[in-house]
């Protein structure tokens, strides 16, 4: 009797079972940067799990984001002083992702409410965190816009509305191209399921981007033993200079 009552209580306390649940996977969760690395492709796929038929109402949408490791960035603006263009104003952003890609099934403004966007930090301007240090400019907006513009031009920030294909409101896939100028670190993939601007389920997965082989070795040596690294670089330079000189002498004689 008591056991039955406890079971009933537990059932009442348990979270309501969601009508639609997200199941997702990645084509690869480990990207190795080798000497021949020239960008990479990653496929994020999944399905919507339901116990009941598709509910009526506004259509289902999917948003997929991939975010690279964050780092502080200083944005500087040039202005004309005494006839020459020099850096005058600057704004420091405490943390901006080194890479950020968003793919959706529709226009972000239509499928995601502003409140949800702010809560989950999905759209590009919200992916950046607060400013660092004292602000010396009145309007920071042109600076953050410039950061987005420059990184977009470098292929580091992308927004692809309709980059996710949703089939029969159940199966979806999103293809991402990672550029050649990728920074190593822990990347994060997030998948959001939205209906009427509300996020109804979310899934998160990690992607590791690491230098491997020769790249790893060179990078590690410079970090761990810069003096040896510097001497090796110099030895290489002197040897190459001497070898070229000797080779040319042999050709001529």
């Amino acid at each position: 009797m008591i056991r039955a009552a406890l079971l009933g209580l537990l059932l009442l306390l348990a979270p309501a079972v969601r009508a639609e649940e997200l199941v997702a996977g990645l084509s690869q969760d480990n990207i190795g940067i080798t000497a021949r690395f020239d960008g990479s492709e990653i496929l994020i796929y999944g399905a919507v799990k339901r116990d009941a038929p598709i509910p009526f109402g506004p259509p289902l949408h999917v948003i997929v984001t991939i975010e690279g490791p964050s780092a502080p960035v200083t944005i500087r603006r040039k202005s004309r002083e005494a006839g020459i263009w020099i850096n005058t104003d600057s704004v420091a952003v405490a943390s901006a992702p080194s890479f950020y890609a968003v793919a959706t099934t529709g226009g972000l403004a239509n499928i995601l409410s502003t409140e949800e966007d702010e809560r989950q930090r999905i759209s590009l301007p919200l992916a950046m965190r607060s400013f660092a240090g004292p602000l010396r400019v009145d309007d920071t907006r042109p600076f953050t816009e410039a950061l987005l513009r420059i990184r977009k031009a470098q292929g580091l920030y992308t927004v692809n509305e309709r980059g996710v294909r949703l089939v029969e409101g159940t199966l979806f896939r999103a293809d991402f191209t990672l550029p050649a100028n990728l920074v190593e670190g822990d990347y994060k993939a997030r998948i959001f399921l939205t209906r009427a601007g509300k996020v109804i389920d979310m899934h998160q997965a990690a992607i590791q981007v690491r230098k491997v082989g020769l790249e790893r070795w060179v990078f590690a040596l410079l970090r761990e033993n810069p003096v040896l690294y510097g001497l090796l670089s110099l030895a290489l330079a002197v040897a190459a200079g001497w070898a070229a000189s000797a080779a040319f002498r042999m050709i001529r004689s």
Partner: protein
Amino acid sequence: MQIYLPIAEVSINAYLLLGLGGVVGLLSGLFGVGGGFLITPLLFFIGIPPVVAVATGSNQVVASSVSGVLAHLKRKAVDIPMGLVLLAGGMIGSGLGIWLFNALSARGQIDLVVQLAYVVFLGLVGLLMLQEGVRALRRSSRGRPPQRRQHSWIQRLPFKVKFRVSGLYISVIPPIMVGLVVGLLAAVMGVGGGFIMVPAMIYLLGMPTKVVIGTSLFQIIFVSAFTTMLHAITNQSVDVVLALLLILGGVVGAQIGSRLGNRLNAEQLRILLALLVLAVCAKLTADLLLRPVELYSLYSGVRP
């Protein structure tokens, strides 16, 4: 063939880097300049981060200078005692220069100071050399041998030493001073300083042009090696893969350059170098005066 550079963290076409190294090496062998003032802006232009470009550029300058100096040694066109005296001044100068660099960075605007220094010195040196070259070319076409200028106050200084290869008997004070000033400028501007050293040796010390190039390369080896080590240790930005590709192109270029230089006469060589220096100066002046396409620029980290 794309290759991923481990320190610069970008993927670049390997043949482009080989070609770039080759062109700079050619100029290095031809004119006795390290090529730092060319390789750094060029690397920046193809998308290498500036810090890596400066540091790796100095490593490649070591290689092309070694290659060039060996070719000049073969022709006995290196005045080693003079090179050592210049180097002694140069080391004191770079020490002062690094101190000045840090003092200026603390106040911000180091970029502007460096850029202005480039414009002023490249412009001055280029115009001076062009004027002298044209004058000498006219003189030699009239059949009179060019006379070597020697300032009388330089002749009166103490500590005179005989520099056999240069055919000079002068005090060590002027070469030390030249080395010091060039070393100071080189450290602030982040280059080997060959483009200032070469004209200073010709016009201030009165050394023959043929010897100047080899001797300049000789002292640049040590200055650049010092800079490379400093960059590797302090900001860890020397990319050895990038350097290797530039070096492979550069050493071959330097050999071709120093042999080509043998065929051209000294006056023509001087005019060519003057034009090159003026072209770089014009580009930098335009960058300062014209409205840039992108007013904003990004720097990693929180900076003043």
